[in-house]
Structure formats: C-alpha cells, structure tokens
C-alpha cells in the first residue's frame, strides 16, 4: 500500500517512519536546513527547517510524516520564522561574509539568500572567540560556529574519536576540543576525519590554500542551494 502526504499542496509519497525532511528530499523538494545532514541522526537544533503542520510549526528533520499530513514549507509565516532564526545565528557569531574564505561555499550564507534575508537585523553580539591555528592542516574560527554539532556527531559517530563537544550553556555555549590543552593541534584530529569536512560554515577550514576560486564564481554564487543542495554533494569543489 502506498502512503502519501501533502507538501505545499503537492501530493508526495512517503515510507512510514520517514521524516518530513527525508520524504521531501526523496521527492526532490528542498526544505532549508543547517544542522541536518542525512549521514547523521536528526538533531533538530538550528530550527531553520521549521515547517507548518496544522497550527504548529515543527522541525522537518525530526518529525515523522503521517498519512495525509498537510505540510506548509513556503508560506510567508514559515519563511518569516526561518529568516528570524537565521538572523539570530548571524547576530550570535561573527559572520563577515566578504572576508570569509567560505563565502559562496557556505550553507549559512546560501540558506540566508534562499530565505530572502537581506540584513542581520538584530544587534550583533560580536563574541570574542580566538582562532585556533594549532593544527598543521586545519584552523578553527570559533566565531563562525553555529553549534550545529555536525563535527561533534561526525567525530563521534563516524570517526570514533570524540574530538569535539559543546560546552557551557545558553549564549555561552561553545565548541570545545578534546585535548589536554584544549587546542586542536594537541588532539587526534586528522585531515582524513569526516569531521573535517562536514562544517556547513567557515568554522573549520583547511590550511595552505585560500581563495583559489574567486568569490563570485563559487558554488552558491552560481546557483541557489535549493537547486544544487548541500556542500555534502560538492566536496571535491569546496575542499
């Protein structure tokens, strides 16, 4: 027996147990997201993938589809929420796109464009978070971390290393590294780790190269994220 639900008025099939995100992706429909990556268990923390179901908004990445469910992925109310959440992320960190090596290859920036975010809106917090350049192959710019925990999950669930964790709470929550000094260079982090390649922003960057492709000609400069998808599918170009 086949199952179906409705997304923005379109009837789509789903497999019982599938999340709204997975069913939409399978049908080729883009739902903006940041902390979601199908290689890892759904997380639900960034709140960018909120969709309307009935009178509530739920995260598409964690909510299972049910028969006949009507999902709103496109109304102004849904897009307003997403923009506000993205603006909060921009205000929280130090996201200065014009000077960032990831500009054009950054999912945060690309999703912000997709949702029509034109300005950060909220007063920025300008956190002081020193860069960690202690590792021979990678630098970490904590100011660009959006706490999606993809590196945490990749290191733990794929690499079997637990190099990263989130510490603190509230606005003081921050990414930490598992070494005695707390520095990446003293940890067992390696260029071959999956954790080195899952960051959706410019927080974890490879060393020894930069701006090889000019800003303006990069992945999301050419096409919107809704068409070309996440960095996951374009690692050759981006790394």
């Amino acid at each position, binding site marked *: 027996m086949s199952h179906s639900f409705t997304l923005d008025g379109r009837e789509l099939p789903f497999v019982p147990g599938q999340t709204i995100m997975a069913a939409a992706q399978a049908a080729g429909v883009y739902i903006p997201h940041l902390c979601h990556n199908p290689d890892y268990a*759904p997380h639900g923390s960034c709140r960018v993938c*909120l969709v309307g179901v009935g009178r509530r908004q739920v995260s598409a990445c964690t909510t299972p589809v049910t028969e006949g469910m009507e999902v709103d992925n496109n109304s102004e109310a849904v897009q307003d929420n997403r923009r506000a959440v993205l603006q909060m992320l921009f205000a929280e960190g130090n996201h200065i796109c014009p000077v960032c090596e990831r500009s054009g290859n950054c999912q945060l920036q690309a999703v912000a464009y997709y949702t029509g975010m034109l300005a950060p809106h909220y007063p920025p917090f300008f956190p002081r978070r020193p860069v960690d350049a202690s590792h021979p192959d990678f630098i970490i710019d904590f100011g660009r971390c959006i706490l999606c925990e993809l590196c945490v999950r990749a290191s733990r669930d794929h690499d079997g290393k637990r190099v990263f964790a989130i510490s603190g*709470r509230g606005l003081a929550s921050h990414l930490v590294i598992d070494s005695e000094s707390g520095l990446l260079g003293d940890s067992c982090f390696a260029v071959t780790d999956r954790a080195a390649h899952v960051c959706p922003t410019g927080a974890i960057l490879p060393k020894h190269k930069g701006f090889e492709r000019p800003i303006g000609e990069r992945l999301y400069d050419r096409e919107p994220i809704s068409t070309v998808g996440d960095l996951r599918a374009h690692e050759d170009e981006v790394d």
Partner: protein
Amino acid sequence: MGGPSVPEIQGFVTESLGRRGRAPEHLLQHLIGVQHRFGWVPPAAVESLAAQLDVTRTQVRAAIAFYAFLHDRPRGDFDILFSDNITDRMLGNQRLLALLAEQLGMGPDETRADGRVTLGLTSCTGMCDQGPALLINGRAVTALTPQRVDRIADLVGQGVALDHWPGEYFRVEDNLRRRGLLLSNPVTDGAGLRKLVDLGVEPALADLDRSGLRGRGGAGFTTALKWKFCREAPEGDRYVVCNADEGEPGTFKDRVLLTSYADLVLEGMTICAAVVGARRGFIYLRGEYAYLLPHLESVLARRRAEGLLGESILGKAGFDFEVAVHLGAGAYICGEETALIESLEGRRGVTRKRAPYPVIAGYKDRPTVVNNVETFLAAARIVQWGGYWFRGEGTDQSAGSKILSVSGDCARPGIYEYPFGTPVHRVLTDCGAERTQALQISGASGTTLTPADFDRIIAFEDLSTAGSFMIFDQSRDMFDMVQNFAAFFAHESCGFCTPCRVGGSLLHNLVEKVAAGQASEHDLGELRQIGAVMRRATYCGLGSSAPNHILNTLDKFPDIYRRRLRSAEYTPSFDLDGALAQARAIAGRDDARAHIPDTPPQPPEAAV
C-alpha cells in the same frame, strides 16, 4: 599556596568512584562530590574522572561549564549565593547582599583576594515564603535580616565552620497554611502498597484511571495513560523517576512534600514501579535542596528496613524496587523531563528529541515514567482510597486538588491546597493579600494576571499551573519582575536551539535597554517579534514559554514600558560615544570635545 595536592584529589576521586560507581552516568554525582570537598573541580579531578569513567575530558569540562554549581576555578572557603528570584528582590535581597559585601570588604560578585569568601547571585532557591534566602556551600539559609547578615559577616570573618553556626539559620519552615485532599493526613502505614500487593496491579491502575489524575508538573498528561504506555512497552528494564528539580521560580511545594510527606511520595513511586514493572527508580533532587539528602536517605533506609523498599517488597517474591537520590547542580532546564534524563545519565542537561517520549525511550533509552513529586503523592492516596475519592473534588477536566506555593505580597505566604476549580480571589483572600496589582501564576514561564482575571479558576481548562503563585501589590513596579525574569531565562537557556539561546539573550538585552531609558517604540515591537518567534520555533516547552512574561506585560502593563521610552520612534542600539572610548584612551583625552553629546533625537515635527 595551600591548595589540595594532586594525590589528595586523586585519592578523593578513587574513593568517590568506589562509593558512587564507575559508570559514565555517575559523572555528575562525582563532580558534585569533588566540588563540595574542594570548593571547585581541579584539573587533576577532571583528568582522573576522564581516565576512570568512560568519558572524555571534554565531557567532564562541558558538564562543569553547564551546571551553575560546578566551577573550574577555586571559590572561597565560604561560597555564598543569594537567591535572586523576584520575591527575594521584593524582600530586599539586593540591599542585604550589598551590606554583606561591604562588611566583608569586597564586591557583590567576586571571590575575596584572600580566598576566604565568594559572593554572588543564583536563580530562585525555592525559599520564597521565607526569604530573602541564600546558599552557603550549598546549604540554605533563610529569613535573612540585616542583623543576620551582620552575624554572618562575623562568622565568615572568624572562619567559623558551618556546623558551628546557629542552627536556626538553616531552619526551613514548611509553612503549611491550608491542607486539603492530599495534605490533611500525613500518616501512611503503607496501606496503598499493601492494597496493591493484596489485590494486584489491575485494580490499582483502574483506580488511577477512574481518578482522572493528571500530571502536576504543569503539562497535565493523564497519569494512568503514561503508566499504561510504560507498562505495555516491550520487555526489558524500565525506570521510575520522581522529578524533584523544582526550579520554576516561586515554586517550593515539592520541598515541603519531600520534607513532611516523603513516605507517601516514595509509596507512589513504588506503586508505579509495580504497575510498570520497574526495578529501579530515581529522585532527581535539585541541588538547591541538597540539605534534604540526609533526610531522604534515612527515609529510604527505614522503608527498606520495614520491607517497603528493596527486594521482595511486603514479602512478595519478585516485587523488587530500589530508589537512589540523584542531585542536580543548578540548572533550571533539568526540570524538563528529557533534559532531566540527560542529566541523570551524567551529561549536560540538554533537551532530547521527542518523540520517542521518555515513556518509550527514556533513561538509558528504556521506558521511563517521569512524574512530579505531587503526582506520586496523589497516586499513593488514590490507590489507597480509590479513584472516586479523588474524583469527588475538582472539576470535570481537572480532578482532585492542587497544591500551591504562595509568595510575594501577602500576610501568610506558604503552602495552600485547594480543590481544582477554586477561583484566584479565594486564594488571595485566604493568604491575606491586599491591594493586589498582579499575580504571576505558574512561575516565570507562566501567566501574568490582573484583577480582571481574579474570578478565573485554577484548573487545566482555565488557569493551568504547576503551583507557583507570586503576588504583587500596588506598590510594585511590574517592570522589576520583567527584568528579573528576562535575566533568568537568558541565564537558564540550555543553549541547544537557536531561538531560545539567541532569542533569550536578545530579549534580555532589549529589556535592559528599556530599563536604561534608551529604548523606543521600535524596541517594543522587537520584543513582541522575538517573543513570537520563540513561542513558535523553540525546541522545547521551556524556550517557548520563556517570553510569556514579556508578551503578557506588554499587553496588560504597557505603561511600565512606555514611561521608560526615550523616544517614540527609534533609538539606535549602537552607542556612538561609547565606541570612542578606546580612541580617547589612546589619545589620552577625556575633555568635552572628545565626546559626542548625548542629546535625544528631535521629534520629527521639529526636524522640518
């Protein structure tokens, strides 16, 4: 300096591991022990715990950074935290803190240079009916007066150990003002448990079903249904958890229940264990109530001796149930049941994805019943006296009674039990509240009521409440409450999801901007917009209720904002003169011409 030596720290950790256990979920309990022993968690303890439990040092450090009562640098020998709920403020806690700081010759939020004493503030410690209150090395001191503060300054100055302080400082009163269905009779001889053993589980569950009991923690889920779900879950271990992380500001009924009705609470937990088939249970006790630990341990020991706990309860082979008390360490979010379970497992108390709900996958991913202290108490009586007995009080949708924690501006603060359906004005009259301007019901995350609401009734279908009842008379500026709650929510956000983590701090900053007289009408719109996003978009219920106090007061007390506005339209958040401070310092200038004058923007008419 005479800090603890590394072998001393390692020795303590080894001893703690032997006593409390070596599983990763024991981490938080070890950390609390280390903090208590040394006044902080030294790096040697971090390394030692990481090496001997199956956790990374990062997980240990992350837990220390998460819980407010754990510290990665030394605190003073006397670590003094003033409770800073709005009710403490109304009783003058800030003045008393300033007084103590002055007498000790230090600032109100620092450790004195000689390491003798640390001063600071902490979220509501659950002593609102006998405040202002403070915690000293984790122990509650109540009913502070200037005289008591004077004496405390002397005792600290002389370095007198807490055990030699006057006992009355640590006295915590029950203040039971009105006993109803549940509180009128504290006696238990295990009658409910005996009935269960005699008649079996099915009649007990039927009585619970008949009673219409709904969870007393606020959400109001039907208790019988929760227990049934857990009972029907696939084979294997299951757990019973009593949520005694009473962190909602203005709530303190669970403290009283655990003090004077602990047997009934444990009987309810034991009955639940029989119904769902659990062999282990936990009381998650908030760190602020750590002083109750010896009392609870003695009740547990007595119940074991009486055959009401442990193996073969009441002689029934196979009816085994053991309860452990797990301490929290200063985190409001741990009152949320999934965060509580994370904390029980030794981690940061961050909310989990639901579904699956804890009743399907809770502690160690096993079916787990998490209920409020009051719910277990009610369940014990329902099984003893029957579902109809309970059903006989209350309304159609809200059976039985509700225990309220009443504080603020009234003659008789304390614990009041009423049948559901009781109007608010009845409570106000009984507690001696006069000239009441507002009532904050169900805590900081609850609803702000004005006299127009005082005919409304306490019931799930009207005013649902976890029991907090904070009263404000006409002498109060309601903006003080807003400022207090906004700071509270920014401090207590677990940080997991964007809208609560960032939105909570944005709200706090905007409220401070209003307080400083720097805000405009535009900022009030921002408060509403951010509040609305938080209500819709946060991951858990605590985040979505965090802006309630702002949204409520913007509607019901608009003047507390309006009269503080600097201009009608727009004031930039950017402080131009402040931004020049560094340049002035470099240039060595501080004359008038090195400043940008602070003139309010002209109204639009004048600009023409």
